[in-house]
């Protein structure tokens, strides 16, 4: 495995306000995904599969579910005597509580944690991205290029490039310029928010940034531009494969649908790169005599007596007779009553969708079901 010590710092404090009610009580990295996972399983499993054994998880917004979920890190083999996972919420000091003001300030405030780990390299990861990536290759690339910082980049369609932080490079993949959401992008290489820093360099810049009153203490906006300006060696690492930043209800839905496409590049059935997760103790799923499941993923504990087409079904979901669910994401513990019709719906955990309920989304937009919506429907007498 890795010779020089790498510590991963996983930023998991994000709110994800565009995910609406899905993230009222949990942080975005804790969001359920893919029938049994939470999004943070992906970067954590990438660490395990890449041989990274020391991981700090930085939490701030609604941290309880995440803290409980990650626990000692057992599902990811991160319950170690040396290293392992450390949860890093904001904390109080003699001169007050210091909230994480930005991505860089979150790392700065945990400099003492990093110093105690004594790493050669620090890997900065985001807890809300869905992808499978071998970080060992990224660190090797960083070493080969003798870089101070390496930014992982992804080729995106040109028409979408203006939604991303775009990186302009020369033929040697040296970074020349940063363009945060440019109107007229000069390149289609998007930053994935995955960085490797040589620790000594990172420390130096974090300390300078901390005392800069004009800084927003963000990696993309402050630290990286300032390193570029000072002429530090900055290279781009071209990542190839599936990568998705799940920021909205639509993109969460899309990412789930991608799982159903056998050619999407996101294969969960690869025994060589398992996505680890906590595994609830539930009986196998049952497809009854009236059930019909097509082009879908179904988790344990489910009983399917209705029709399920192109959908992702989490654990412990009941789909009753006569119900029809298509192109939908049904989260854990949901009951879909008799004759319910759902198309392009996301149903949050433990919702009880009453008999006869129908989602009327003719325009094919994705609908996020809420308890309020169901209550109103019942008040109207089921219309």
């Amino acid at each position: 495995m890795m010779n020089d010590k790498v510590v991963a710092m996983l930023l998991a404090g994000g709110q994800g306000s565009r995910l609406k009610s899905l993230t009222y009580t949990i942080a975005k990295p804790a969001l359920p995904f893919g029938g049994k996972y939470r999004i943070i399983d992906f970067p954590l499993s990438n660490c395990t599969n890449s041989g990274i054994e020391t991981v700090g998880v930085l939490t701030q917004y609604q941290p309880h579910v995440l803290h409980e979920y990650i626990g000692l890190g057992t599902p990811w083999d991160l319950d170690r005597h040396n290293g392992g996972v450390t949860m890093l919420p904001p904390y109080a000091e003699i001169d007050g509580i210091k909230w994480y003001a930005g991505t860089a300030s979150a790392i700065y405030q945990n400099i003492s944690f990093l110093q105690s780990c004594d790493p050669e390299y620090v890997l900065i990861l985001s807890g809300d991205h869905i992808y499978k990536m071998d970080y060992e290759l990224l660190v090797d690339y960083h070493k080969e290029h003798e870089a101070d910082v390496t930014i992982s980049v992804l080729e995106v369609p040109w028409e979408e490039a203006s939604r991303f932080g775009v990186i302009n490079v020369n033929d040697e993949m040296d970074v020349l310029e940063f363009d945060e959401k440019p109107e007229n992008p000069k390149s289609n290489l998007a930053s994935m928010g995955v960085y490797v820093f040589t620790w000594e360099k990172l420390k130096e810049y974090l300390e300078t940034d901390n005392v800069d009153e004009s800084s927003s203490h963000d990696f993309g906006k402050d630290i990286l531009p300032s390193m570029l300006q000072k002429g530090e060696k900055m290279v781009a690492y071209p990542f190839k494969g599936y990568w998705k930043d799940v920021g909205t209800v639509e993109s969460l839905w899309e990412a789930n649908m991608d799982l159903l496409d056998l050619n999407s590049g996101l294969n969960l059935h690869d025994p060589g790169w398992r996505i680890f997760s906590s595994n609830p103790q539930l009986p196998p799923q049952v497809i009854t005599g009236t059930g019909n499941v097509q082009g879908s993923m179904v988790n344990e504990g489910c009983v399917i007596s209705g029709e399920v087409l192109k959908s992702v079904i989490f654990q412990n979901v009941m789909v009753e007779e006569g119900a029809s669910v298509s192109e939908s994401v049904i989260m854990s513990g949901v009951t879909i009553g008799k004759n319910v019709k759902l198309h392009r719906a996301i149903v949050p955990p433990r919702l009880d969708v009453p008999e006869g309920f129908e989602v009327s989304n003719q325009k094919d937009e994705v609908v996020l079901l809420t308890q309020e919506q169901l209550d109103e429907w019942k008040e109207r007498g089921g219309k």
Partner: protein
Amino acid sequence: MNLMAVVDASVKKEGLQDLTMQRTVSSVPFAGRYRLIDFPLSNLVNSGVNTVGVFPTYPFASLLDHIGVGKSWDLDRRKNGLFFLPVTQRDGGISSVGAFGALEEHIQFFTKSIQPHAVVINSFIVSQLDFKDMLDQHIQSGADITEAVSGGVSLKTYILSKDLLIDLIRTHRDKKVVSVEDVVNLKKSPYKFNEYEYEGYFAVIDSVQSYFQASLALLDEENRKQLFLADRPIYTKVKDEPPTRYVSGCHVERALVANGSTIMGQVADSIISRAVYIKKSARVEKCIIMQKCVIEENCDLSYVIADKDVYIGEGVVLHGTAEQPIVLRKGEKVTKEDMR
């Protein structure tokens, strides 16, 4: 809890030979994602018992791999917990439950433990027995030995005081009795016996036939409701398998399916374990397909038990009967050429 447990995992069942070439009866896969031993172990922890000795004979590698230090059952403890106590073939491997010779090999397990009562159980009967309830009834009855029964069928589960058990272990040669089961079945006996009537699901797995029937009986909702209780879960060693994929064009009805599988063909009235691959136009009816089996295109199978890692090549046709299901042994490869 003042009860310790002996899980006799050394009992041999001739009728299960095809499924126990490389494992003990206790580690025979059941219900898609479990091993038989999961049921007694889960019943014990759900009853509050946390001192558990598992007594297997060879070949116990798969059992050891499965239960490990007992983490899945919360039996990885500093105080009490799971004790893995293998016994020699000479003393174990008989057909009655609680062989004294086998228990004698680990007499310290009994002398060192602090619980005054012991329950001796087997791992070939699947049930939801509540040992706390059974112990309460045993103490109330004032009997020396209590046997669990259900509708006249012995569940081969016995509660007795630990002192009596130790005494029986030490003196069994003079008394010419070989096991706890043997003592209970003696016609003349100085002991006072009591029966504990269990009402609920149970299945005795002692032959390929009974295994097949008990497995398919789980497709009946009533049986599942009695065996899989939300407040008394059946624990097992978990695997990080993704949810099962049902590819468009598949047809699945009346099936119990574990995670990690990919189904493209037709499945009816069957048990499909973890990480099974059933390819296009294959037909699987009234079958038990265990972990990591691959069933190629255009196969036609009915009344087949395919043990772990079985490969069934394209176009293979195999039809057993309810009385005599075809058993494909662990790792077996079957191709159309073999069929001629």
